[in-house]
């Protein structure tokens, strides 16, 4: 049935696109064509950059053809792959998916462990050692390595350094200093706020919240794959601090702020003095702002402590496809993570380079000398904890979002909300303990 359905589908597609004539018979050995599904999640000409790498790779490896499929953001790419596999189709050889998708992808049996390839590679170990440690946090499961960091980002605090200088303020080094700076930089015209001290998006809140929890000494996840610490007193305190920024300090708008898209523009146009956002916005900010942009990790609770959390996508190799394609895909992975290329990708896209070697290249050194903010952003990775990834992530993350937003919106106290989130999450995780 499935086969008949598939062939009917295939025939239809062929007829519709009129590609029947262009279809060459598949060759058994020699040339191999691999597909890579690639999400475009930021406002940079990523597809053009990536196509350039593919061209270069094909020059070096004439027997391999790489087809990039750009079909939306991370969610769309994941959906497309799931639909293909569940419908009995062949997955692409490679895809860039969120680092946090790890457990879902392994449990569904979609991806291949990279251990054999790393072991067979003559400098496999050195290769793996070169990746920045916090980018590897979501690559291991079940004693195996499953993904290679590629387009990675982190949560940062951006500030208008000119406003800080005018007010005689130092960049904040603790929660209290942060709140006070926000308070001092908030401007009002009567009752109306004309400039906020801080904008802290929370429409999709877990990621930007995590540095608050980590900055108080307790991440929301633990070492295990089914451990969460939502109701830890330190996490509750971090939720309270978010609320305090508006309630106690009056430094930001009350409640959930669904302003992810606007926040960088708001900072650049002077609507706010500080924002919490992705490192992916750095290039845009440097272009748009006519003041000196300051970049740092988020202040922690105690003076002199800072915190961040990584994000973004990793390269995954798919299971149940022709081994020749997998070999070619591994070659392409290695090609993409050569220090020179990682540096170039970082400079052009605004993402971090995923390996330490890239920061030693001449190109990167020159770029960092011209843009000191890049090094400031890079420093945030040293204080980054692990991004929220557990088993049954979709459900557990929903639970956390629901209650965190209820706390932000004052519908529940932080302690009540986090206790409820913990209890529901335990139920959602019971099949994994």
């Amino acid at each position: 049935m499935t086969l008949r359905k598939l062939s009917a589908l295939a025939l239809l597609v062929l007829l519709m696109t009129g590609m029947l004539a262009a279809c060459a018979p598949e060759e058994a050995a020699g040339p191999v064509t691999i597909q890579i599904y690639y999400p475009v999640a930021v406002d940079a000409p990523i597809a053009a950059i990536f196509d350039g790498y593919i061209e270069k790779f094909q020059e070096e490896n004439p027997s391999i053809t790489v087809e990039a499929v750009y079909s939306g953001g991370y969610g769309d790419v994941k959906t497309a792959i799931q639909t293909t596999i569940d419908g009995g189709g062949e997955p692409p050889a490679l895809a860039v998916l969120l680092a946090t998708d790890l457990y879902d992808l392994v449990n569904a049996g979609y991806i291949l462990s990279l251990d054999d390839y790393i072991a067979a590679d003559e400098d496999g170990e050195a290769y793996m050692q070169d990746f920045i440690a916090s980018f590897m946090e979501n690559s291991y499961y079940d004693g195996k390595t499953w993904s290679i960091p590629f387009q990675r980002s982190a949560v940062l605090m951006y500030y208008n350094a000119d406003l800080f200088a005018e007010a005689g303020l130092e960049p904040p080094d603790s929660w209290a200093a942060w709140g006070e700076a926000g308070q001092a930089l908030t401007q009002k015209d009567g009752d109306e706020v004309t400039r906020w001290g801080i904008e802290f998006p929370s429409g999709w809140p877990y990621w930007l919240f995590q540095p608050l929890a980590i900055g108080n000494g307790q991440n929301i996840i633990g070492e295990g794959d089914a451990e969460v610490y939502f109701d830890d007193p330190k996490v509750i305190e971090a939720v309270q601090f978010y609320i305090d920024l508006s309630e106690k300090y009056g430094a930001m708008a009350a409640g959930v702020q669904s302003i992810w898209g606007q926040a960088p523009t708001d900072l650049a146009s002077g609507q706010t003095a500080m924002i919490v956002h992705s490192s992916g916005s750095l290039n845009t900010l440097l272009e748009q702002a006519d003041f000196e942009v300051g970049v740092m990790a988020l202040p922690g609770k105690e003076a002199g402590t800072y915190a961040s959390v990584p994000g973004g996508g990793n390269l995954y190799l798919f299971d149940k496809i022709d081994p020749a394609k997998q070999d070619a895909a591994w070659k392409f992975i290695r090609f993409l993570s050569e220090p020179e290329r990682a540096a170039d990708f970082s400079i052009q896209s605004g993402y971090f380079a995923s390996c330490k070697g890239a920061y030693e290249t001449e190109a990167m050194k020159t770029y960092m000398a011209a843009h000191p903010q890049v090094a400031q952003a890079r420093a945030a990775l040293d204080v980054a904890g692990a991004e929220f990834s557990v088993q049954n992530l979709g459900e557990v993350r929903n639970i956390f979002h629901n209650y965190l937003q209820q706390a932000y919106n004052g519908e529940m106290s932080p302690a009540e909300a986090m206790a409820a989130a913990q209890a529901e999450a335990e139920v959602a995780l019971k099949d994994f303990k």
Partner: protein
Amino acid sequence: MEKETARSKIDRYLPYLLVLPTFAFVLLFTVWPTLSAFYRSFFRQRLNIAKFRIPTFIGLGNYANIFSDPHFHRVFANTLLYIIGTVPISILLGFLFAMLVNRKVRNVGLARLAFFHTTILPMVSAATVWMFFFTPGYGLFNTALVALGYDGPQNWTGSPNLALLAVMIVAIWKNAGYYMIFYLAGLQNLPTSLYEAVGLDGASWWQTIWYLTLPLLRRTTLFITTIAFIDSFRTIDDIFGLTSGGPSEASTVLLYYLWQKRFEQLDIGFSSALTVILILLLLVFTITNFRVSEKGEEDV
């Protein structure tokens, strides 16, 4: 004689041949997925939990889980509220717009375009634009409201009390122009002689609309009500763009919930059962709608 038979043969089979492509598509993309969802709804299958990856028959277990799921109750209530809040208003507005632009005045084409252009915009772009309109403080929507004397809360997409309303506002804005087109087409097909007749009888403007225009447009209204209802169940892309279903599920409606269950939580059984429920709801509504209206027609 022989020629005759050949032609009648063609006549006999041609209609089937002509509907074949449509039929094949409906079979492949509507009937087959529906049957498959129905079948899968009796199994527990969760792709992200290794031990539940292989489907096991659990009878009506998924349905039981759905009806006891507090999130489903919330989502269902949101969906009803959304339908009640958007369908009648956007149809009424569509009718009013159609009345407005169904005249022979200068620049009426421009006015039609103004009402209709929202329909042409892709929903995701529309949602992105509205995100800017909704921005607290300087957003266009808030600025306009303040100019009209509004001094209530402005956090449209972040407040639990306003998020669903924000999604509804965008839906009404988007759909009213679409429904206008059907009403406009309907209005232009109405015989002018009837209007001249009621004019001679001295009917008021209101009487003309109530006793002549609306009854004559009954079929159009039936059609629009049906598509409006189906459309409102299909709402999903604007929610992605505006609120992601939040805050705290305040703007999660049925199809978005279904998407979350299927593609974020990889729960095949649960989402298949939700699909079946969704299809049944639409079927019951559409059939009732047609029945009621046919009955009304007999009465007339």
